[in-house]
């Protein structure tokens, strides 16, 4: 099993969700996040005082899938999150040792 984490532009979330659902990925956890990469931030002005806002709002989504599904899922996220502009985000995957479904106690791939 693999944990796929993606940090994407907030307004692409719906497209990414749809793309994953089409693959049969049924669970997803989303967190509002802030950060910066090459995009850097922007400037805001209040009563003439300038503030450099370095941390840009992003959405961080996490999903656990079977090993075989990992690459198609990553591809789906990348395809649906891309706008071609700077700040589109990152996707990465790490191996997962075990997963338990709390309601039934199932373990491993069955719990995904």
């Amino acid at each position, binding site marked *: 099993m693999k944990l796929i984490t993606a940090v994407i532009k907030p307004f692409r979330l719906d497209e990414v969700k749809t793309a994953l659902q089409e693959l049969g990925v049924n669970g997803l956890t989303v967190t509002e996040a802030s950060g910066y990469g090459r995009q850097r931030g922007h400037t805001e002005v209040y*009563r003439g005082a300038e*503030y450099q806002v370095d941390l840009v709002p992003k959405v961080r989504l996490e999903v656990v899938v079977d090993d075989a599904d990992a690459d198609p899922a990553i591809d789906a996220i990348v395809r649906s999150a891309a706008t071609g502009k700077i700040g589109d985000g990152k996707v990465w995957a790490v191996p997962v040792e075990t997963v338990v479904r709390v309601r039934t106690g199932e373990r491993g791939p069955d719990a995904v």
Partner: protein
Amino acid sequence: MPVPKRRAVTLSLCPHLTLPHPEERFPVLTLYSSAPLTATLAAAEGPDTGDTAWLLAATALVLLMTPGLALFYGGMVRTKSVLNMLLMSFVSIALVTVVWLLAGYSLAFGDDAFAGLIGGFDHLGLAGIGPQTLTGTVPTLLFTTFQLTFAILTTALISGAIADRTKFAAWLVFVPVWALLVYVPVAHWVWGPDGWISSSLGALDFAGGLVVEIASGASGLALVLVIGPRIGFKKDAMRPHNLPMVLMGAGLLWFGWLGFNGGSALGANGLAAASLLNTLLAGCTGLLGWLFVEQRRDGHPTTFGAASGAVAGLVAITPACGVVGVLGAAVVGLAAGVVCSYAVAWKFRFDYDDSLDVVGVHLVGGVVGTLLIGLFATATMTEGAEGLFYGGGLAQLGKQTVAVLVVAAYTFAVTYGIGKAIDKLMGFRASAEDEQTGLDQTHHAETAYDHGVLVSPMKGSNAS
């Protein structure tokens, strides 16, 4: 807003007035029942009901300005001390009301006790004032309540300069002391019976450029110098946390300001109408002026700029609304919007943390409005004094300048003294730890916004 002498009663049916052709009037009156006739006769002995009705409404309008100010300021601070900011305004309502009725009214509006500087003790606790007592054409109880709402707002205004870092207990001590030692004397000088600024000097301040705006602005500056800047001033981002709240507050202030300035005519008449119109207009030109500067200087017109510009225009027209014409009001508002949009940057250059720009908007706007009276006062409004542009020469400008300097110096100096004394006595400033954690949590044990799903179980209840 000088206390008017008892106005000549112009009612046509007063028994003691000699009417030129009384018999000509009666046929008209017989069209109505006898009820209005009786009411009219009784009115000659009591208050003017029209004036009283308007001033009752205006008083309620002005009272709403302080909660409006609370929202205006509350939106500008960070989430961790918004409740503290709101509460500083709300406790001002409670504290100032008590001291005003105990002593403030008597010292400000009682008969002059010494050289136009302070009123007497005759009306401590409103002694000698009943429902029948009149000031001008309105009940004195209403007049004192109207004036009270001014004292409340002026005191609350100061809190913006010392936002985010003031020990709440110190504020509770400061408010009543400041209201009595600073607000009350200045109110007497300008509006009290035989107050020296209106009677001897002859400077004009219709609704509070000196008493409200300059007094609160100069006092805010004094307190900033006593307690010092917020931790992280000029370094950390201290963005307003809720601009919709700021705009809502500005809207409520604007709404209430119509009662503040329109009510200062102390009657339901043409002067009230003119003041109200001038107030609306100056808010508009102030807003446009500020936005214009922002567009040119920063590249974007902002909501915060619009709210600030409207308030700057309203501040400046406060002393002038009843003494300038419509054109004058437009210029006063515009000038304040432009000047204040630059003045708010002075705190960064000169290194004083006037957190929410009480100096940049209220002191500077108040000075702009009070001085421009010297240029734009017109005899059609003042029935006497005229500014430079209306043929009055430089005399009025000179008087306005003296009044500005004296009021600014007095309020700054006495407030600085009060601030230092309180600081010595109990500490005026919250501890660094409390400030960094946020005053909402450390001083009030509350959180303004419950964003989270992580709630802990209840510990108990004092209410049960």
